[in-house]
């Protein structure tokens, strides 16, 4: 078993080496941003202009085309960070720490966007901007987790220690992920249960669901592109003393 996997690990190590990842990620970042950006634009026009209004919420439901994609992407990003944190702690892959570091600002803004859009949506529907139910509170906790990760990484000067502390915080905070996801099923909450269900019936007509799914897919692409772009700069920064980075940016001192 251990023997047969050796080539895979060797390939994985080579693939995740900073210079290699820097080179191969470039077309991916550009491609995902182009596709995601275009799809997001189309989805917004579709959702804002062409989708019908809701029988109960009228036009205020159109906030869903921002709210659900950002909330969903923030959870997916956290899951990615948790898996990356395990890889970082077990295999000590340098790239894993760089990815985690650069996921933080993206996850923070996605979580904030989900909370803010939800609050603005809550006023015309529920009648309040905020209520301390399990869904909203656990989502606020996720925002604090992202702020905590940023703070801990910034506060610790020694790079390795900062990376390890951040990875551990990501894994401790992992408990919040299933709580956010299933809070609306486990407890009485103000927030309604999920509309889009993988198992069971999705309770939205196609004319509304199609732009929603498109904007979700688009948001995932844009988020992936953002993380890639940020990670690429992080690679250059952390490897700034190496020759390949100096060559890459055309900055060289006297030989």
């Amino acid at each position, binding site marked *: 078993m251990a023997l047969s996997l050796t080539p895979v690990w060797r390939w994985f190590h080579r693939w995740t080496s900073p210079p290699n990842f820097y080179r191969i990620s470039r077309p991916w970042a550009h491609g995902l941003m182009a596709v995601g950006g275009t799809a997001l634009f189309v989805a917004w026009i579709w959702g804002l202009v*062409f989708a019908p209004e809701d029988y109960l919420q009228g*036009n205020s439901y159109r906030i869903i085309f921002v*709210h659900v994609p950002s909330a969903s992407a923030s959870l997916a990003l956290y899951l990615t960070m948790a898996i990356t944190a395990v890889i970082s702690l077990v295999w000590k892959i340098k790239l894993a720490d760089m990815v985690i570091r650069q996921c933080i600002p993206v996850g923070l803004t996605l979580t904030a*966007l989900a909370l803010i859009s939800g609050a603005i949506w809550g006023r*015309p529907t529920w009648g309040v901007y905020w209520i301390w139910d399990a869904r909203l509170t656990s989502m606020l906790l996720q925002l604090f987790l992202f702020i905590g990760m940023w703070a801990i990484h910034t506060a610790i000067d020694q790079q390795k220690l900062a990376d390890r502390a951040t990875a551990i915080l990501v894994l401790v905070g992992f408990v919040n992920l299933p709580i956010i996801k299933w809070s609306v099923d486990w407890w009485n909450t103000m927030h309604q249960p999920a509309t889009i269900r993988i198992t069971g019936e999705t309770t939205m007509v196609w004319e509304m669901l199609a732009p929603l799914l498109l904007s979700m897919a688009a948001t995932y692409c844009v988020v992936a592109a953002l993380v890639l772009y*940020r990670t690429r*700069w992080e690679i250059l920064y952390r490897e*700034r003393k190496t020759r390949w980075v100096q060559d890459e940016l055309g900055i060289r*001192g006297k030989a």
Partner: protein
Amino acid sequence: MGYFDSFADFVRMGNHGIFVWSVYAITVLTILGHWLGLRLQRRRVINELQRLKKRGHL
């Protein structure tokens, strides 16, 4: 236009215009903020490298 009878109706969003449009405005600002963040990251890397070069570390 589209689902709406007129452009005015579209902007009004059935009296929920302020809520819908503020969410979309905040989202656009967030995207712009991230674009700006990438520019800043780029500056940071280039400044750092130029600083190292000036000090003769490269």
